[in-house]
């Protein structure tokens, strides 16, 4: 159950789980935010023996964690090899289906796209991750819905995709099975600190004593950490996706390209997103709405170009998610100096696929103070020290107009 295009891991995930068992016995950890990053961290901590409580303002996985393309092929990340090592075992480890599937194809319908894919293929091959280049005919043989307009593409001999909604619920359920608590509809209202540590988290549902806290609340991290005197620069934006009725199953469902990300689901639906985003204000209680826009039409066009043989399929839904980004688009996975028992995790819009690995990294920071399996120093919060209050304006990341609050 490993990928052909990856270095062989030195240890199986099951061995890792055996190794960490009991390392955090009786440690009380409160996780703020039941998205995929928080839940995975909670799962890893529970496997280490911690007493985990996840607090969520609404329902687990309700925001970006359950509204994304489901991709799991993030070669840019220091967590990549762990992502690749873990995913093939996640169904077995969690005990619930995630719909994980291996491998990905990225196909081009313009010369510019093809150039970019060739560059990315070389970049990956240079790092030791195998990517094969395909010509148009090879793509058409592998992707029955591709058309004559396809110029070629690349085949990741690693990576894959899973069903975000099912996976998020799988983390939540397995966490409960391990004795963890998930408290939904319970926004966090504040923190109680003592001697440079958070000793309790206050939520609308009550007070939760803790030895350690993980703040994994997506766009709401900024407001929550401000309560602890820590500035986390984040900007939220809306991104959109569409989905069609089921198409005949393709041998590899993880096909995208043409400016789109997404996949064919195991049911056959084509679920794709991409395109311009809209920067938004962040509301403390979370996004009051997640509207789609007429961008649906531009997405439909690109899906029809990507898969000309599916152009007759009905689009049956569109949806949107609110996603936070850091100023450089890279994650922040960092344990604070003060209060020293608080760990922050935001994946800057690329969190779902990497979640099995980010949870491991967070577990390590919470329990051991440092990541055991990869260097994540460049993901520290301190890289944004002195960034300046106008960092959003400098990037043009501020909302275009003032929103009407609900």
């Amino acid at each position: 159950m490993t990928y052909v295009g990856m270095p062989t891991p030195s240890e199986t995930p099951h061995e890792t789980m055996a190794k960490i068992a009991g390392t955090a016995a009786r440690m009380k950890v409160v996780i703020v935010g039941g998205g995929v990053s928080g839940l995975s961290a909670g799962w890893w901590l529970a496997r280490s023996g911690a007493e985990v409580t996840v607090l969520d303002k609404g329902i687990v996985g309700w925001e970006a964690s359950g509204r994304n393309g489901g991709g799991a092929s993030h070669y840019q990340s220091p967590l990549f090899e762990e992502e690749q090592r873990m995913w093939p075992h996640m169904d077995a480890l969690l005990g619930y289906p995630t719909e994980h599937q291996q491998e990905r194809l990225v196909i081009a319908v313009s010369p510019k796209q093809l150039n970019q894919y060739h560059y990315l293929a070389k970049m990956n091959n240079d790092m030791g991750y195998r990517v094969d280049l395909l010509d148009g005919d090879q793509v058409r043989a592998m992707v029955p819905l591709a058309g004559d307009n396809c110029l070629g593409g690349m085949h990741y001999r690693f990576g894959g995709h899973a069903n975000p909604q099912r996976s998020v619920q799988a983390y939540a359920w397995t966490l409960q099975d391990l004795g963890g608590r998930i408290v939904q509809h319970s926004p966090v209202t504040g923190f109680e600190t003592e001697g440079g540590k958070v000793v309790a988290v206050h939520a609308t549902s009550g007070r939760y004593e803790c030895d350690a806290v993980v703040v994994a609340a997506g766009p709401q991290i900024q407001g929550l950490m401000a309560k602890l005197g820590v500035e986390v620069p984040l900007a939220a934006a809306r991104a959109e996706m569409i989905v069609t009725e089921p198409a005949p199953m393709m041998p590899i469902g993880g096909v995208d390209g043409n400016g789109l990300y997404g996949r064919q689901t195991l049911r056959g639906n084509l679920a794709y997103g991409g395109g311009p985003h809209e920067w938004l204000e962040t509301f403390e209680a979370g996004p009051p709405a997640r509207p789609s826009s007429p961008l649906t039409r531009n997405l439909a066009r690109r899906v029809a170009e990507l898969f000309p043989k599916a152009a007759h399929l009905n689009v049956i839904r569109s949806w949107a998610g609110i996603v936070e980004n850091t100023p450089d688009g890279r994650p922040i996975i960092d344990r604070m100096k003060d209060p020293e028992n608080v760990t922050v995790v935001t994946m800057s819009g690329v969190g779902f696929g990497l979640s099995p690995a980010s949870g491991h990294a967070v577990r390590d920071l919470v329990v051991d103070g440092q990541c055991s399996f990869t260097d994540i120093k460049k993901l520290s919060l301190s890289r944004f020290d002195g960034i300046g209050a106008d960092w959003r304006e400098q990037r043009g990341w501020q909302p275009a107009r003032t929103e009407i609050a609900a």
Partner: protein
Amino acid sequence: MHANNGTDPHAIGTKLPAPEARYDMVVVGAGPAGLTAALAGASEGKSVLLVDENPVPGAAMGNDVPLLFGGRMTTATQNAERMLETVFMSEPMLEAAMEAGIEVLLGTSAWGVYRNGTGITGLPENVVALADKDRGWIVGYNELVLATGARDLAIGFPGWNQPGVMGAAALERLLAHYEAFAGKRVLIVGSHDFALETALLAREKGVEVAGLVEVRSAPQGDAALAEAVRAAQIPFYLEDAPAEAIGGIDGVERVRLRSGAQIDVDTVVLAIGLVPSIELIDAMGGKRVLDGARGGYIPGDNAGVTCVGDCAGLADTGFDHVEYRMEWARELGKLSQPDTIICQCEEVTRADLLGVQPPRYLDRPAPMQARSLDTLIQDGPPNPDQIKRLTRAGMGVCQGRRCRDQVAMMLAMAANGPFGSVPLATHRAPVRPLPLRILADWEESEDMRAGWDVWFGIPTQWVPYRDIDTPREREHQTAIAEGWSL
């Protein structure tokens, strides 16, 4: 750190297009209420666009969109030209509308309304999105009038997932507007006003009505209507309910009632209730309220949008439609089996829905099998959107029309709460299933093409970790960013 001089070329900015036409008033739905509103607008000198989705494409009807046609339409519905003429002739006010200078577009659905507001500010103006059989487009409006009517309420029972189980609104459409009903002999489920009217209409159109089945002890509708039904020698089966629809390759052949009676019919007409068609209001983030006397969820006060006719709520006669349909749902639930299908598109059974189990193409390991709606409810009130994600009920091509309401009722019952205690599953645009090629904007702006990106357009995001802060970082950023615009 990169700096973009205060602009983000990949943000939505002004990339969304302006509408291709603008009207003082856009009216969606050319039934009597929509036509009356359109004519009133035209008489005040307004430019008015009136769109109506009828005749609905045959393929959509096959998916029970927008009404529960139950496969009982004749092949005439496949002839678009003939259907257009039939629909036009069935509504005399359409000609008057055209004479009044109203732009009338039949066979044109409104699949979305987009307005600036919470969570979206990038629209050049508020628009209605339209589609006909050839293309999709958007139009601007000053006033929007929704006259989208009401759709069929479906509640499953054994055998309901076969051709020949249809809704009363669909039957009315086929009989009175399409002249395309394929059935000969029908059994009507329910006895409130619309059920009684449907029985009389069917009789008038030469369809044999085998009877009306009513779960309560007396006919529920207007006394005079009930009397007219009795006078037509149509029997009522009171304190009874369909226990099973039995059929063959062409669908329903007979119905077995709870009482044991067997009735030979080719069509079962569900006339338990009508649901105001609030898809557009809900999908645009508009306000809605629950009003049992007016048919369930109805539009609230939405600035700039007027709802008229049944979509604004059924006539309040003091009858609690929600209580009535909950009673039916309880009874039909008792008559159902674990393998009775609830969601036809995704083939979700009653047992799988209540067990919160994944579709059959996925494994169900022991921990999964130990989960159920009961365990989920321990974590918070049931939410149809969450159930949908887990079971796939409501995720199919009919866009949840056949199961949305019954799933909500089942969840409320499972949580021992009233119907309104369970949130409504969200509606999202397109509120009609529309082919990619129709929905597509084939004439998008250069601005959109040049500013397109896969994901936020932050080049630093995709630089391999090992190359961050090295000379190679810039090279990667440039090469990656160049491939984004199309």
